[in-house]
């Protein structure tokens, strides 16, 4: 009965590889987000989708590509991973407006 779930929880990979992180929400929300949290805990929004449509793309390298097969899922694919991509990535969802967001447990990505 988890509200927002992400897989995997941990991801260790080498530079240059391609990896994906999956997110699912069972709250019936229309909007989903991807955030990056760096080692200083700063939360930076990357993307936002509303009903499968991209509405926010915050100056993220085009190596990052979100995909929303339906409004309950928002996956993040990262090509050619770099050391600087190491961070915790959070998926979140909200009803139509951004007021109350529900966050997933996070995926800790380590690029070596």
């Amino acid at each position: 009965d988890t509200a927002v779930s992400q897989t995997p929880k941990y991801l260790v990979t080498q530079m240059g590889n391609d990896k994906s992180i999956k997110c699912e929400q069972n709250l019936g929300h229309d909007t989903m987000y991807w955030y990056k949290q760096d080692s200083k805990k700063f939360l930076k929004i990357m993307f936002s989708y509303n009903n499968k449509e991209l509405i926010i793309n915050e100056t993220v390298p085009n190596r990052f590509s979100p995909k929303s097969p339906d409004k309950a899922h928002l996956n993040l694919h990262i090509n050619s991973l770099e050391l600087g991509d190491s961070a915790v990535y959070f998926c979140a969802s909200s009803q139509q407006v951004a007021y109350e967001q529900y966050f997933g447990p996070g995926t800790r990505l380590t690029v070596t």
Partner: protein
Amino acid sequence: QQQVKQSPQSLIVQKGGISIINCAYENTAFDYFPWYQQFPGKGPALLIAIRPDVSEKKEGRFTISFNKSAKQFSLHIMDSQPGDSATYFCAASMRRDDKIIFGKGTRLHILP
């Protein structure tokens, strides 16, 4: 300016004391000010929120004070407990946008 400034960066409080975290914003179009709490290894979770037409909101030991003219708001944690040790994020959003602007976070440690 879409920015929310949060201070202090870290805070240590004795058990039973009052923890105070301050935030300031520039954009007067913001109409919702939530606070999120994040425990280590977990995603942020909504703690308490306020709208600018209210000067104070209290939920248990947590109180938001809001000063619209000064464009400042703060979180007070009364009778702070070791279980309150976490990172706290203030944030701001507006109805016409689909994103929340987060402050940089405050790491709170309550001494037992």
